[in-house]
Each structure stands twice: as structure tokens, then as C-alpha cells.
């Protein structure tokens, strides 16, 4: 399959590369843009590890072709902490021990950060419902739920 020129805007930066039109966004981010924070866990849209933002909304990068993303804004985990300072949610995940092996963590951060923007006062049931789109095999979820609720509280208080 012939390679085509692809131009993407990721975390506000322009990336230009040649790739086959079938190349997944998840692979392009990692291999062509060298942004390896987005992880690949299932490549069929279930586990949520590859979640990024497409024009500010969470999407599965393993179910998206890179070529489709031309003209859109893609945001990855690398853009969440600002100048080495963790976001409220990242800090809460750290404080609540909401991660162990860390492989699912970028996807969880991307899913929850976007969700929290529109829901300043979530309850536990809603957080668990949201998190059902991201599989974690290490934590049993309890500390992730606590962290999301804590981040929401702190953002409200701030």
C-alpha cells in the first residue's frame, strides 16, 4: 500500500510524515510522532488505554486512522501536565494510589479529565459508569474512583 503524506496537529504542534492510509492513529502517534505515552491495549476499542482527545473530546486512537485526523486537533497524555506540574487529576491519582503498573493510566487520565470539565460535581456512581470504558487489571478501581472524586472536589474548591 502506497504511503501518503499526512499532516497532523498534535498537542498544538504540526507533525508531517508519510504513512499508509490504513495506519491507525495510535500507531502513528507512537511511531511517527514519537509520542509513546498513548498505549495500545486491545486494538478493538474496549480497553481504553489508547484514549486521546480529538478536538477536545475523548476518542479511541486504535479505532481511528491517522489520515482521518488531518484538520483536527489531537491531544495526548503528554500535553496534560503543564511545565512538569501535574494536573489536579494526575496529582489526585498519585495521592490516592490510583495507579500501579501505569499502563492504563494515560487512557484513564484522558477519559476523566475531559469528563470532569463538564461535570464539576460527579458522584461515585457516575464516576464508576465513566470508568467502565477503561480497563485496569491492577487496582480494583477503588483508588481511581477516589482520585477522580478528589480531583473534582479540588477543582471546585480552587
Amino acid at each position, binding site marked *: *500500500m502506497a504511503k501518503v503524506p499526512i499532516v497532523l496537529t498534535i498537542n498544538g504542534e504540526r507533525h508531517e510524515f508519510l504513512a*499508509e492510509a*490504513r*495506519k491507525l492513529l495510535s*500507531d502513528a502517534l*507512537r511511531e511517527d510522532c*514519537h*509520542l*509513546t*505515552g*498513548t*498505549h*495500545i*491495549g*486491545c*486494538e*478493538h476499542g*474496549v*480497553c481504553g*488505554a489508547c484514549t486521546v482527545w480529538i478536538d477536545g473530546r475523548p476518542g479511541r486512537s486504535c479505532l481511528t486512522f491517522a489520515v482521518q485526523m488531518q484538520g483536527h486537533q489531537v491531544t*495526548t*497524555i*503528554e500535553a*496534560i*501536565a503543564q511545565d512538569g506540574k*501535574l494536573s489536579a487529576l*494526575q496529582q489526585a*491519582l*498519585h*495521592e490516592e*494510589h490510583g*495507579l*500501579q*503498573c*501505569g*499502563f*492504563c*493510566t*494515560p487512557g484513564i*487520565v484522558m477519559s476523566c479529565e475531559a469528563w470532569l470539565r463538564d461535570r464539576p460535581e460527579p458522584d461515585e456512581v457516575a*464516576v*464508576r*459508569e465513566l*470508568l*467502565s*470504558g*477503561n*480497563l*485496569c*487489571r*491492577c*487496582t*480494583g*478501581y*477503588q*483508588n*481511581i*474512583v477516589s482520585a477522580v472524586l478528589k480531583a473534582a472536589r479540588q477543582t471546585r474548591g480552587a
Partner: protein
Amino acid sequence: MRDSPLGKPLLRKEDFRFLTGTGRYLDDIEVPRALHAAFVRSPHAHARLHRIDLSRAKAAPGVVAVVGGADVNQWTAPLRMAPPIEGLQPVEVQTLPTEKVRFQGDPVVCIVAADRYLAEDAAELIEIEYEPLPAVASFAAALAPGAPLVDESLSSNLVSHQSFTAGDPARRFAEADRIVEARFSQRRQTHLPIETRGCLAVWDEGRQHLTYHNPNQAPHPLRSTLAARLGLGESQVTVIVPDIGGGFGQKIALYREELTVAALARHLKRPVRWREDRLENLLASSHAREDKARLRAAVTNAGTILALDLELTEDFGAYCFYPANYLARVVAMILTGAYKVKDYRFDVKVALTNKCGNGPMRAPMAITSWVIEGAIDKIARELSLDPIEVRRRNMLRANELPYVTATEQRLEDITPFETMERGLKTIDYAGFRARQAEARVAGRHLGLGVCVVVESTTYGSAFYKAAGIPGSGHEAAWVKVEPSGAVNASVGLMASGQGYETTFAQVVAATIGVDPAQVQLHIGNTDVAPYGMGSRGARGGTAGGSALHLAATEVKEKVLAIAAQLLNLNSPDQLHIEDGAIEWLSDGEWTRTELTLASIARTAYLDPLRLPGGMEPGLEAHRAYDPPPMTFSNATHLCEVEVTTATGTVRILRYVIAEDCGTVLNEMIVEGQQHGATALGIAGALYEALDYDNEGQLRNGTLADYLVPTACEIPNFEIIAMHTPNRRNPIGSKGMAEGGVMGAIGAIGNAVNAALAPLGIEATEQPFSPEYIRSLLR
């Protein structure tokens, strides 16, 4: 230190990189010119291999090499699994099969291409002529007369069979008032780390050296196996383990795909990498469980257990990457748990079938606690006794320890009675009957399940020797104080989420007397770390923590000896280190001297003439620690459930864990491990089952079909810490992180049966899916 960091819930050093996407997992390592491997796998559960035509694939765009067993088996030695264990048939596994395939997913051909897309394109062009053979897809089918042989070099599919008797169970069964029989079965599960398997092999032709990147829990044993099977010396292989995206026991063995990739890198003189996809991971990595147990108990009318008789079977799948008795036998050895039963018989059979091979998955002995605790509940039901009273009647108390079990396991410093009583109080066991009766009036079915867990955590080399399994239970560590006073340490374990960089820094820091922030762990590189046995079981804290503690103690003693010399003291007895400063005890008070760890380190490295006579320059120690044959920790899990009879669904209403795992290294991390282990137990108890049909075809090999629990299924856990030190361990540790799996399986098993008992129904097959519960209710 006066304010020891040991046990403190220090936040993890690892977190920043994982939270910001700057962790470094296998696939994040970029190597120029690396080729990508893909495998062609058998669509049949059992088939003779005939013509394999690689020609079209070899001509495909971007393809560099296409190889089958005929090539790879010339470059690699087969795996020979033949420990001298009575009743265990020796087996040998080729790197890639040449005669026949044994399960759906068996790798047959490897393609190496410029990228993974092209490798997978070429895979479509491979033509393999299979002659399908009848498959055995269950333990029963494997042992049926005339069953096809999974491994034709064996005399039967019964790859392992062991029995054991202690005391005189036959006599006790004859004397018993009643014999209670209970059955338990678990379906096949898989580990499902969110990061699948993979490797990256880099061959240096000039140095004749292989650098092998692999997310493996046991780097040194992996190096030994890899070097031997490639025909390389152990100094020609470096195993580098990056951050691991979850292991749970799946990342211990050297898999055939991984060996093939290493051999190809050497053969092609090009870096080769492989990452399996999720479908391959579900179908063909490693499976676990699929144990079935029948326990018969000889009891008195008052509920005293006189003797136990266990029959256990395991469906092991098609290949042995571990000795086939390895997992099931531990169940039999520790079955009696917290109870005084000296008359005990077991019979353990393991069969090969045409399914993916089994391996140890977080709590290989997962079914144990359900079997004993479920049997006790059944005894209580049949005798119309309170199940807790039956436990109290038979359970070991503190004053009866140490206690040597029927299988000669030494139990000491465990507190099953204490954790049970505390758990019962917390969950209001006394008030449960009223809650249950009230709910019944409203048409709701509640059940409360209790599961007392005695978890075997840390195997010493004496256990391996006694079991006939090659290997050792020791662990090794080094600690170095560098000339600047920075502390580096290493251990032969490898983390896959346990936070070793934090907890082990706490152990070293507490031992020496510095801030844990100053201690850096260096793990996962076989040229740097000492040869250790790796992370498996629940041995990390107990074996690894102890080895680090011993090494740190030796370094500290050297520091204090140097300090005594520099201070003109006769002995270091009145000296210690507090937050990196040397302190001197005078008139009952510690006062700071002008010496610090850093100044002593400078002297040790750069001014050695000032050292005490005969002392070597430098400041480092290398120690190993071999634990006792077996270390146990304990817990009690209690959960209250509601079973909805109309739908067959089970909802967990409350979950309490009272645990004693000895001195903890980091309270927060221990709780995290308890959550994770218990969640994995719930996964097997209620949701997960790999569903093979009678022809050995996997019917639910995607994450859309294999039900991994999400945040909506896993409840909150209430944890009661009841840790008491282990007096036989240098740091008081007992180990933990698998017992949660055992406890959840048993507590849910018992809770659901407590809810169903008034309906005259007994659930014996996990997972307790809605379909299964409804099938019982019909």
C-alpha cells in the same frame, strides 16, 4: 531511625512518569532498523502439519524472512521439562511445531517484515495444509479410554498424578458420624495484563552479544533459559526489563514466540521486535485455573473435622511451560489452612488437553480457600450448625502455634482466629440473620460469606528441593553508598506495578538511616542486578526486602565502624545514623557528630588510608537471603451479596478484609495490592471464563466477549490492618498480594450459597454467571 520510613504510606516514586506518559514500556523503546515479527497460528485445536508453503509470503512487500519450525528448531534447543517428581511425565517442547499443532493459536510460522502491517499482510499469504485430528477439550475427554494423545511422546494425557496420605484417614472416615462431600470448580481464566506480551531482540554481531528487552517478572531465570536455548553463554545475553504493563504471572516463562524472535535477530543480524495483539493474548499466551475439586470431610455431629480427602484435577492445556504439578499441588499442600486436621489424603491429577497451556496466575492456588471454607459451610448446613461455630471448633489458636500441618508445612505467627473475629464484628455477623430474614420478606435473597485465608507466600529453597522442582527460593541484593553519599540498590526482582522503587527504598533507607528519597533502586537489567529468582508468588517483600535489608545492614555496619575510627572510639556501639548524619549516644541522648554518611563515603572511596586497619576501600555490600521453606500470611474476607433470582445476577453489597501480612513496607501499597488481588478474585468468581467448545475452539476470544470486570462490577473494599510481625523474617514480613484472590473466590462462593441455600440450591461452578445461577434456579 527514630522516625522510620518503614511501613509509611509514602507516595510512589514511579508515579510521575506513568502519569505523564513518560514511562518506558517495551514498545516505547525505539531501535533503528528494527524489524517486526508476526506469527501465523493454527486455526485447529489438533492437526497434523503437512505442506507449509512460505514462498508467496517471502515475496511479499517489505518481508525480510519467513521461517517455520524447520528453520527455528535448528537455531534453538527444545524446552525439556523433566524434574524428578514422582508421577510427573517428562515432556519436551519444540520451539515451533513441525509435526502437529496442539491448540487453536499454536504458532507455526514467523514472518519478519519492515513493519507490523506488512508482516501481517504476508501472514495471509502463508499456505499450510492441516490434517485435522480429533481434539480433547476437557479433563474428562483427555482421560477417556482411547482419547487422542495431545503429546504423542507420553503414555497418556495424564501428565501428572500424585497422591499423599497423612495419618489414618480411612479409619477416621469409618469413625465419623457423617461424611460431607462438597464440589468446586473454576473455569479457565487468563491473566490479561493490559500490556500484552512482546520482546525486542538486538544482536551485536561484533561482540557476539544479545541484548534482549522483555517485560519479564524474573529477568535472571529468563536469561539462563534464553542463553541455553540459543546455545549462547550466559555472559553473551543481557536481559533488560523496561516498565511492565502488568504481569500477574503471565510474564515469567520464555515463550516460544519470544525465543523465535531472539533467534531471528541473531540469524538476520538485525534487531527484531514483536508485540502480540490482544486476540493472540487471549487465545495463545497463557491460561490458568480450570481446577475441579471434590472434598470429602469426616465429621462428628458437633462439627469437629476428623479427616479430609481431596480429589483435585486440573486441565493444563497443550504444553507444559512449567512442571504440570506445579500449580495444583500447592492447593493440596496448603488445603487444611487454619484448621487442625492431621488425617488427610489427597489425589491430584493434571491432564493435557488441546487448549492453550496453563501457567501460574496471581494465586496459582486460588481455589484452595474456597474448597476448605466452602466445605466447612456445607458441613454446617448438613449438621444445622452455625458455619462460624464450625470454624471456631476446628481452628488453630495462637497458643497452638507453631503447628506442623499434615503435609508438614510449619504454620507460625499467623492470626486466622483474630482476623476472623474482627471481621465478623465489623460486618455485623450477629445481626445478619435478621437482615437476611427481613430481606426475604421483601422477596430479596441475601447471603453473607466468610473465607479465612492462609496464604503461602514465599517459598524457600528447601521447599523447591522437597518438591523436586529445580530452582531456589532465595533472593539477592546489593546496596552501594556512592562517594557523594547517594545510595543505590538493586535486587533480582522485577516490578510490574508493585512499586518496588518506593517500598524497597523505604527498606534500605530505614535500615541505613537516610531519607528514602535518597535511595534509588536499579532493577530489571541482568548486568546490573544480582542473580535473583524474580517476582512471582507473593515473595517480593519477604525475600527481596530481606535481602536488601541484610545488604543495607552490612553497609551501615561498615559506615559506623569507619565513624568510630574517625571519632577515636573503641567501638561503634554508641553510634547510629539518623537522616544521613552520624549520631553519638552520650548521657542517654543522641547528639550529632560532624560526620555524615556522605563524608564517610568520601573517606571510604577517596581517602582509604584513614579506614580502620585491614578494611577494604569502598562502601557496598552484596547479600542473599534464603527464606524458610514456606512463609504464610493470613486474612479473613467477608462479603454480603444479593442474588436476584429473576435474572441470576449477583450484586456485592459489602466487602470487608481483615488481614495480617506481617510488617508492611508501605501501608498504601499493601492496600493497593489487597484491592487488586481481591478484584482479580471477583473476576474469576463472577465473570471471567474462557469458553472452549468440544472441538477445542475458543468462542470468546475478544475483550467484547471475555468479561473483564470494570469499575461498575468491583465494589469498595473495607480493609482492616491487623499486621503482626513474622519473627522468622529479618524485617518481619510475611508476604502478600495473592491471598486476596483466594479470599474473594471463597467469600463470594460462600455468600452466594448462603443466599441460595434457603432455596435448596448449591452453586459449585464459578464463575457464578447469571446464566449459571438461572440454570440452577430452573
